[in-house]
C-alpha cells in the first residue's frame, strides 16, 4: 500500500466518522442523562434539512449551521417534553419522532421548493487548513486539511469529555444514574433531562449538517439512511464514554474507508455488498462486545417525584 492510498483511506475514515461523531455525542448526552436516544436519527435528518433550507434561502453557511442545530434541537424538544415531562415511552417516542422527521422534511421540501422531486443544490463547505500543521507530511493532509466541521466534531467530543467531569456534568450523570438522589441534592432531573435531550438534538442536527452542507451540498428524502442508529452502536462500542465513542465512530469510518479502497482496486464486488458492510460490521461488533458496556442505571424510566 503506497502512501497516497493510505492518506486517502485515513482521510475518508475521518470524513465518514465526523457526522457519526456529532450524532453519537448528542445521543450520549441524552443517554447519560437517562433517556434512550432512538430519535437521534430523526434529529439528524431534521438538522440536514434545516441546514440545507437556510443555505438555499440565505446562502450563508453560518446560518445553515445554526439552522441545523436549531432544527435538531427543536425535534429534541418534542422528545424531551413527551418523555421527561409526560413520561411517554422513550424508545417508541424516538421511533415516532423519526417517522415525523421523515414526513416533515419530505413534506416541507416540496412545500418550500415545489415540484414532486425538487432539486436543492449549493456549494459544500470549504476546506479549512490549519496553519503550519497542515504542512506536515502525511499527517497534515489527513488531520489538518479538512473541512471545518471535522475539527468541531472531534473538539465537541473532547469538550463533552471534560463537561461530564464538571459539576454540571455530574448532575447530568446523576439524572441518568439515580434521579432520586439528584433530586435530593436540589437538582431537577426533569429539567436536566430536557436540557440534555435538546442539547443532544443540536449536536445531532450538526451531524446532519455535515451530510447536507459539507459532504453532498443537497438534501434528499431520508438521506441519513440509518446513520443515527450506527451512531447509537458507536456509543455502545465506546461504552457511553465520549472518547470511547470517538473510537467507535472511527471504527465505522474505517469500514467506509475500506469500502472506498476496495472500489478503487476495481474488485468485482457488488455495490450492494459494499453498502451492506457498515450494518453487518456494526452487528458483528455489537455481538462481539455483548453485555460488556453498561448504560445509565435509570435509563428508560421516567423520573417521578415520590
Amino acid at each position, binding site marked *: 500500500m503506497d502512501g497516497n492510498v493510505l492518506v486517502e483511506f485515513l482521510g475518508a475514515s475521518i470524513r465518514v466518522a465526523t457526522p457519526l461523531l456529532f450524532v453519537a455525542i448528542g445521543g450520549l448526552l441524552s443517554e447519560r442523562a437517562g433517556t434512550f436516544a432512538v430519535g437521534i436519527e430523526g434529529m439528524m435528518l431534521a438538522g440536514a434539512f434545516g441546514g440545507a433550507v437556510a443555505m438555499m434561502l440565505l446562502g450563508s453557511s453560518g446560518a445553515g449551521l445554526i439552522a441545523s442545530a436549531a432544527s435538531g434541537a427543536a425535534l429534541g424538544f418534542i422528545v424531551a417534553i413527551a418523555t421527561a415531562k409526560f413520561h411517554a415511552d422513550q424508545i*417508541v417516542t424516538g421511533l415516532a419522532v423519526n417517522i415525523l422527521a421523515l414526513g416533515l422534511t419530505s413534506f416541507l421540501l416540496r412545500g418550500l421548493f415545489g415540484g414532486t422531486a425538487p432539486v436543492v443544490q449549493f456549494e459544500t463547505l470549504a476546506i479549512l487548513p490549519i496553519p503550519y500543521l497542515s504542512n506536515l507530511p502525511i499527517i497534515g493532509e489527513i488531520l489538518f486539511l479538512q473541512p471545518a466541521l471535522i475539527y468541531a466534531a472531534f473538539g465537541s467530543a473532547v469538550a463533552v469529555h471534560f463537561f461530564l467531569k464538571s459539576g454540571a456534568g455530574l448532575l447530568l450523570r446523576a439524572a441518568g444514574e439515580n434521579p432520586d438522589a439528584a433530586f435530593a441534592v436540589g437538582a431537577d432531573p426533569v429539567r436536566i433531562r430536557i436540557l440534555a435531550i435538546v442539547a443532544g438534538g443540536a449536536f445531532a442536527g450538526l451531524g446532519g449538517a455535515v451530510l447536507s452542507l459539507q459532504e453532498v451540498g443537497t438534501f434528499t428524502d431520508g438521506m441519513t439512511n440509518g446513520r443515527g442508529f450506527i451512531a447509537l452502536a458507536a456509543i455502545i462500542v465506546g461504552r457511553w464514554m465520549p472518547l470511547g465513542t470517538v473510537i467507535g465512530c472511527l471504527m465505522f469510518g474505517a469500514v467506509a474507508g475500506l469500502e472506498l479502497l476496495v472500489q478503487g482496486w476495481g474488485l468485482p464486488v457488488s455495490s*450492494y455488498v459494499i453498502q451492506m458492510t457498515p450494518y453487518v460490521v456494526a452487528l458483528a461488533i455489537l455481538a462481539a462486545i455483548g453485555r460488556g458496556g453498561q448504560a445509565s442505571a435509570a435509563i428508560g424510566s421516567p423520573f417521578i417525584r415520590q
Partner: protein
Amino acid sequence: MTTTHQEGPPGSTGDTVPVVKREGGMLAKSIRANGLRTMLLVVAAVLLAFAVTAVLIAISGKNPSSAYWALIKGAFGSTDRIAFALNRSTPYILTGVGIALCFRAKVINIGAEGQIAIGGLAATAVALYLPQLPLVLIPAAIVAGAIGGAAWAWVAAVISVKRGVHVVLTTLLLNFVGLLIVGHLLHGILGDPGAGFPQSPILPEMAWFPKLLPGTDLHIGILVAVVAVVAGNFVLWRTTFGFRLRLMGESHAAADYAGVSTSQCTFAVMLIAGAMAGVAGGIEVLGVHYRLIEGFSLGFGFSAVAVALLGATNPVAVLPAGLFLGFLEAGALSMQREVGVPSSLVFVIVGMTMVFVLSSIGMSTRLRRV
C-alpha cells in the same frame, strides 16, 4: 407496586378483557381502565394531528380543506379506491399483529421491513422455481415467506438474546441488510435481465393471489389479515404463552422470577412476528406486484410499528388501526395527484399522532400514581 393478576372472564372479547395489571406494554394500562377512553384518546390524537397538518398545508400555499376533500375522495371515492386501500392495509395489519405481540412483551422489534423483504424473497423463489406444484403453489410460497421472515427475525433474536444487544438495534440494522440482499439478488440470479429495473421476472399466473372482488384489484390477502388478527387475539388472551408475554410486559425481571423463560419467549414472539411479516411480504409479491421489486418493503417497517401502537398493542385494535393507515395512504396518494399536496403528509400525521398518544398515556399514568 402491586402486581395482582386478573384474567378475563371466559367468552369476553379482546378489548374489554381486563388486562394483567399495571404497566402492561404501552397503552394496555389505559385499555384496562377503559377501552372506550383509549379509543377516544387515539381518535382525538388523530384529529389533532390532522389539524396541525392542515396548518402545514396552508403554509405550503395550498388549501387544506380541498386537500382533505381530495384525500377523502381518494380513500373512499370509488370501489377501486376502496379495493386499493384494503390491499394497502393488508401488510400493515398482518405485521402490526406480530409487532403488537412483541411490544406487549416489551420486545421492541422494529425489523418488519427486513422480515417482509426476506419473506417476499422466499415466496418469490418458490413461486418462480417450483411451478411443478400447481395446486399448492400459493400456499407453498406463503409458507416459504413465513419461514423467510421468521428466519430473519431469528437472526436478530439470537444476537439480542445470546449477546445482550438491544433488539431495536439488531432488528433495525438487519432491515438494511435484508433490503440490500434483495437488491443484490435482483441484480443477479433473481433479476429480469431485460427489465432495466431491479425486479424479478413476472411470476407464473397460477401463483397470483385470487381476487376477492372480481373486476377490482382486491385480493384475498385482507382475509388472511383478519385471520391473523383473530389468531393473535386468541394467543394473547387465551393461551399460557400469551399470559407469559403479558407478564413480560410488566417486567422482564418479574417474569424471570415467576419462572418464565424470557429468552425462550423472546425467541418465540420474534419468530411469530417475523413469520407474519414474511407472510405479508409474500402477499405483496403474489397479490399486488406479481414479481419481486427492489424496495417493495420500504417504509413498511415503521408503518407497522405505528399500526401496532395506534392499535394499543392489542391485536383486535390493530385491525382498525391498519385500515386507518391503508385508507389514509390511499387517500394521500390520490391527493398528491389531484391537488399537489405531497403524500409524505401521511408520515407527519402518523408521527404526530404517535407522539400525542404516547404523551397522554404517560401523563395519565403519572396522574394515577401521584
